[in-house]
């Protein structure tokens, strides 16, 4: 148990008026400690600040979050109410408990969990979407890092924690500068304070970590640094930041494990970088070239959402080894080949595909369409499929796309004939068939 609060201690919460009873110490951080507590009849997490971090500014910021702002999505563990006591100095706040199914991104980069690419892309997409909504609400997170984000390794659902540093963008209150490895170069150099634009940089670093298990700026140059301390970080993250895949300047390029067995100069990135589609490489290149130097030229959350949504649709399975590969339209156009599977080196066969506007959905045996596929204005909700690939009930050689909506679809086959596909019925996967889903039309190809 901690020294800050004791089991059984009863606090009061400011807005609800309910009591909050401390039950169990859960963990400590730089600003305070977190306890399991009972808020009225609801089990919650209670964060209590150390005396030196329990500032009036922090209190005012929390008050604003509790009273003026709703959580942008359910993916945020948002402060629900402030807690204090007549018998104790300081204060705290209550929030939802983090369910045990959520694991830290630290578990991912440590190799303690082995999620699929689909899970990681879903997590990345939800991250981009969550920060899109936070920023759209006029807020700024200030401390995006892999210590603050959790995800479900089964489905990619994310949970953003430590929201007590969230403030209105351009707010003068500022308790936190960020976590050094994720700070935008202008913050590292002391030229700027956290803002929506610096959040965008941190988000790009986090996404790069998720997909490459490497830092985007740690390449060849780190090999000449004996002691990796703050002055060294200042140099590589602040004064001389250079992307490890910068197309114009290779002086900090990622180094393969065969050259540097420690792997600290981006060896993982050397493996992962080529297997993703060109669109992802182009987006990271933008984020860490022009976006490194110009805060107004960073990749916006909406752009990340579009790219990651297409990336998720591009996953198919190698028929030889069963591992996930990415369909790359650009590569197919330039070389007329899908290229070898990065895991078994054999050439996989592409599955049926559905072209839907800008995106191409791989119609694998697991494929599903979701509301955003059929309507741009719908949220990314991977719990409500609107279509799924199924096998014909009597002929397993025939596959189809089943209508899970309550509306009928209309298909036009290659010979020009049309037919309705009622809810629960399926369109056979035949090249050249066009499907009108209502707002959008798709075409099945092979």
């Amino acid at each position, binding site marked *: 148990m901690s020294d800050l609060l004791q089991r059984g201690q009863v606090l009061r919460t400011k807005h609800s008026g309910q009591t909050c009873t401390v039950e169990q110490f859960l963990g400590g951080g730089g600003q305070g400690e977190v306890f399991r507590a009972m808020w009225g009849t609801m089990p919650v997490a209670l964060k209590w600040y150390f005396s030196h971090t329990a500032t009036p500014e922090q209190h005012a910021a929390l008050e604003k979050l509790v009273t003026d702002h709703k959580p942008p999505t359910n993916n945020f563990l948002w402060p629900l109410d402030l807690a204090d006591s007549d018998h104790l100095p300081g204060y705290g706040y209550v929030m939802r408990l983090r369910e045990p199914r959520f694991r830290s991104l630290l578990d991912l980069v440590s190799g303690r969990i082995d999620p*699929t*690419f689909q899970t990681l892309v879903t997590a990345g997409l939800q991250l981009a979407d969550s920060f899109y909504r936070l920023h759209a609400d006029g807020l700024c997170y200030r401390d995006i890092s892999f210590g603050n984000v959790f995800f479900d390794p089964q489905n990619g659902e994310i949970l953003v924690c430590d929201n007590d540093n969230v403030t209105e963008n351009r707010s003068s209150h500022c308790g936190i500068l960020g*976590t*050094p490895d994720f700070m935008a170069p202008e913050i590292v150099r002391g030229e700027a304070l956290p803002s929506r634009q610096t959040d965008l940089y941190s988000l790009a670093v986090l996404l790069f970590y998720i997909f490459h*298990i490497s830092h985007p700026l740690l390449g060849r140059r780190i090999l000449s640094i*004996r002691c*990796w*301390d703050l002055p060294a970080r200042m140099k590589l993250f602040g004064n001389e930041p250079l992307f490890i895949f910068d197309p114009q300047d290779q002086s900090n390029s990622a180094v393969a494990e065969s050259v540097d067995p420690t792997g600290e100069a981006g060896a993982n990135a050397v*493996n992962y970088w080529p297997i993703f589609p060109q669109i992802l490489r182009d987006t990271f290149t933008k984020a860490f070239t022009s976006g490194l130097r110009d805060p107004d030229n960073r990749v916006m959350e909406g752009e990340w959402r579009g790219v990651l949504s297409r990336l998720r649709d591009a996953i198919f399975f190698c028929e030889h080894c069963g591992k*996930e590969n990415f369909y790359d339209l650009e590569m197919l156009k330039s070389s007329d080949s899908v290229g070898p599977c990065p895991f078994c080196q054999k050439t996989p066969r592409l599955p049926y595909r559905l072209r839907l506007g800008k995106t191409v959905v791989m119609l694998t045996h697991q494929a599903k369409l979701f509301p955003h596929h059929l309507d741009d204005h719908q949220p990314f909700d991977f719990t409500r499929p609107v279509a799924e690939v199924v096998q014909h009930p009597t002929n397993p050689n025939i596959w189809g796309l089943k209508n899970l909506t309550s509306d009928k679809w209309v298909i036009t086959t290659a010979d020009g004939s049309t037919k309705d596909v009622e809810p629960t019925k399926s369109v056979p996967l035949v090249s050249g068939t066009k499907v009108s889903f209502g707002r959008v039309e798709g075409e099945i190809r092979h």
Partner: protein
Amino acid sequence: MANRFGGALAARPLQFIWIADCSGSMAGKKIESLNFGIREAIQPMREVATENPNAQVLVRAIKFSDGAQWHVSQPTEIHDFKWADLTADGVTDMGKALQLAADALKTNNMPERGLPPVLVLLSDGQPTDDFNAGLKAMMDQPWGAKAVRVAIAIGDDADLDVLQQFIGHPERKPIQVTNANDLVKMIKWASTVPLKAASNPNSQPMGQSIAAGVVPIPAPPLSTLPIDPSDVF
């Protein structure tokens, strides 16, 4: 079957050394609290290591009284580390302890690349040997100068001046403890917070330039428990 390529994040070694005063004045309650405190700190240190995949935490210990010697000579992974209790007897040859640390921090004895070492010095008295020579030997080593140095002053007789010189940072003071509970608590703090800061700096508060010092270390929390006046050191 692995879903993706297997590589975890690369880790750099981080050398952590406890430098413990085992002079006669430490005998009895103090040395037992110190032993207890270090045993209590090991699990939180393991947790810090687990949460910082870019650091490989390697632990050693030096003891000093009449002379100085390695208590744990081999850099040991924190996950494999076990503490054998120290006993106290003799004088306070702190300079020799720093000399021993200096030898360990020589470039030839250190890995080619690493994280800043963390040195935690615990003492209740005044050096009886040439402290300055030991300090100079340590600071002459590049890894010694880069080390994060933390000191715990046990009781009222600890020499705060020499501990301050060891820390070598005007804004960081020796942590003074006057009871067993605070000693245990501060050993835990000194063994985990600087370790965390040296392996992967956490969220930085405003007003802290990342250019300041080798690593930024948050202030140790003040005791919130009432001090037991009968718990005299």
